[in-house]
C-alpha cells in the first residue's frame, strides 16, 4: 500500500518535473524546429509544431548571405586560442599557489578574483582608445587578449581548487625519492591534474564563446565571432524568422553540447569553489 502510494507520488513528481524542464527548454527546441521551416511556415498561424515541410534551405542561405563559417572560425580560434594561452599562464601560477603557498597567497587569490568583479564599462573607454591607437580593434589578437584576461582569474581559481585536492603526501613521497621539481610536475602532478585542467578548459571555452560585451564593442567584421554574427540579425528584414533560427542554432549548438558535458564542473567554476 505504502509502496503503491510512493510510486504514484514518484510518477506525479516526475510528470511535473518534465513539464517544468520542457517549458524551460522550449525556446531552444522551438528555435531548432523553426530553423527547418520555410519562412511562410515559420510565421504560420496557428503555429506548425512538427508537421511542416522540413527543409535545409535556411542553413544554406545563412551561410551564403552572412558567411557563417567566417564567424564560426573566429569563435573557435578566439575561444580555444585565448584559453590555451590563458592555461599556459594560469597552470604554473595555480600550481605554485596550491603547493608552495606563501604568506600572501590567499590575499593574492582574492585580489585576482576581484579583477573579475570590475564591470566592463568601467574600462571600456580606455581599452577602446588603446586598441584604436595600437591598431588592435577588430583583430583576433586584440579580442583574444581581452578574452584571455577576462578568464585568467577563473582559470587560476578553478585550477587552484583542483590542485588543492591532490594529496600532498604523494608529492612528498616523490620528493623523498629524489624527484626534481620538473619531474615532480611532469610525472606526478600532470597525470593527476589532467581531469581538472580539462574541465577548467571546457568551462573557459564556454564563457569565451558566449562573451558578448567586448566582442560586440571591439570587433566589427574581420575578427567578429558568432555573438556579432547573430547581432547582425537584430534588424528585421522581411521574413527572416527561419533564417534567424538557423543562424541561432548554428551559433549555439557546438557550445550547448560542450556545456552538457561540463555541467558538473560548472557549479564549481562559476562559484569559484564556494559551492561544490
Amino acid at each position: 500500500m505504502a509502496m503503491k502510494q510512493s510510486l504514484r507520488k514518484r510518477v506525479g513528481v516526475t510528470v511535473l518535473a518534465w513539464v517544468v524542464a520542457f517549458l524551460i527548454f522550449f525556446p531552444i527546441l522551438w528555435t531548432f524546429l523553426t530553423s527547418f521551416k520555410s519562412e511562410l511556415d515559420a510565421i504560420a498561424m496557428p503555429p506548425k509544431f512538427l508537421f511542416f515541410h522540413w527543409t535545409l534551405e535556411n542553413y544554406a542561405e545563412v551561410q551564403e548571405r552572412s558567411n557563417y563559417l567566417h564567424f564560426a572560425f573566429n569563435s573557435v580560434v578566439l575561444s580555444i586560442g585565448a584559453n590555451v594561452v590563458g592555461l599556459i599562464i594560469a597552470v604554473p601560477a595555480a600550481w605554485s599557489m596550491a603547493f608552495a603557498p606563501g604568506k600572501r597567497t590567499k590575499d593574492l587569490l582574492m585580489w585576482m578574483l576581484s579583477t573579475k568583479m570590475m564591470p566592463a564599462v568601467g574600462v571600456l573607454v580606455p581599452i577602446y582608445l588603446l586598441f584604436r591607437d595600437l591598431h588592435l580593434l577588430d583583430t583576433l589578437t586584440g579580442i583574444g587578449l581581452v578574452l584571455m584576461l577576462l578568464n585568467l582569474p577563473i582559470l587560476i581559481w578553478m585550477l587552484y581548487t583542483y590542485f588543492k585536492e591532490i594529496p600532498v603526501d604523494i608529492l612528498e613521497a616523490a620528493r623523498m625519492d629524489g624527484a626534481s621539481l620538473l619531474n615532480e610536475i611532469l610525472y606526478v602532478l600532470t597525470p593527476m591534474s589532467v581531469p581538472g585542467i580539462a574541465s577548467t578548459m571546457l568551462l573557459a571555452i564556454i564563457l569565451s564563446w558566449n562573451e558578448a560585451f567586448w566582442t560586440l564593442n571591439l570587433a566589427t567584421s574581420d575578427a567578429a565571432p558568432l555573438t556579432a554574427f547573430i547581432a547582425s540579425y537584430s534588424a528585421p528584414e522581411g521574413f527572416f524568422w527561419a533564417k534567424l533560427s538557423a543562424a541561432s542554432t548554428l551559433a549555439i549548438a557546438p557550445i550547448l553540447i560542450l556545456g552538457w558535458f561540463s555541467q558538473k564542473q560548472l557549479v564549481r567554476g562559476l562559484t569559484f569553489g564556494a559551492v561544490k
Partner: protein
Amino acid sequence: MATQQTTTAGRYLVAPSVILLFVWMIVPLAMTLYFSTMRYLLLNPERTGFVGLANYTAFLSDPNFIAALFNTLILVGSVLVISVCGGILVALLMDQPVFGLNLLRLMVIAPFFVMPTVSALVWKNLLMNPDSGLFAWIARSLGFSPIVWFTHYPMLSIIVVVSWEWLPFASLILLTALQSLDEEQKEAAQLDGAGPISYFGYIVLPHIARAITVVVLIETIFLLSVFAEIYVTTSGGPGVATTNIPFLVYKQALLDFDVGSASAGGIVAVVLANIVAIFLMRMVGRNLEG
C-alpha cells in the same frame, strides 16, 4: 613543507599572471579615472583640459542617469527575485525521486549555454512577436489580444529574457546544494513528524542559505553588466526605458564620443559593482579558510 627553493620558484610562476591582471585592471581603471576629470570629445580632440568633477556632476545630474540607475536596479532586482525563487522551486522539484533526472538536468541547464544575443533575438522574434510569435497565438487562442511586448512593456520583456538566461544557473547551483543534504537528517526530520513547510523552513532553507547567497552575489555582478540583450533588442529604448548604466556609458562613449562623461559613468558603475563585490569576496574568502 614549502622550502625556500619552491617559494622562490613560486614567485616566478605567479608573476606573469599577477603582472597581466595588474596591467589589465589597474592601468585602464586609472585611465578611466583620469579621463573622467577631463573634457575629452573624440570628435573635437583639441578642446581638452582639466575640468575637475564637472563630468561627474553632469553625469549624476543627467535625468538619463537617474533613469538608467533606476532601470539597472529594477532589472537586477526583478531577475534576482525571479531566478532565485524559481530556482529554489525547480531545484526542490528535481531533488525529488524523479525518473530521468540526468536528462531533466540537461534540459534545465541548457538556456545558460545560449549566448545572450541569441536568447534575446529568439525571444523577441519567435516568442514575443505580437503578430506571429508563439505567445501571441496562445493569447489569441485563449481569447485575449496579444501583448505587444517590446513596445508596451520593454523593461518587462528584457526582464523575462534575462530571467530565462539565469534561472538555470540558480537551479543548478541550488540543486547541487540540496543534494548534499544529509540523508540521515532528512529521515530524522520525517521521524519527528516535520511537515513539508517546517521541514523546508528549518532544515532545507538553512542548508542552502549559503548557496543562495552565492547565487545572489554572482548573479548581481553579471546582471549589473547586462548589455548584449539590450543592444540587439531595444537599443535602450523606447526613449530611455531600457537604458541601464552599462548601456548609457556605451552610448556616451561610442555613439556620442564623449569620453569624459562616459568615463565618469564608468567609475560610477565600478563603485556600484564594488559594493556587491565586497560581500561576495567575504563569502568566498571564508570558504578559503576551510
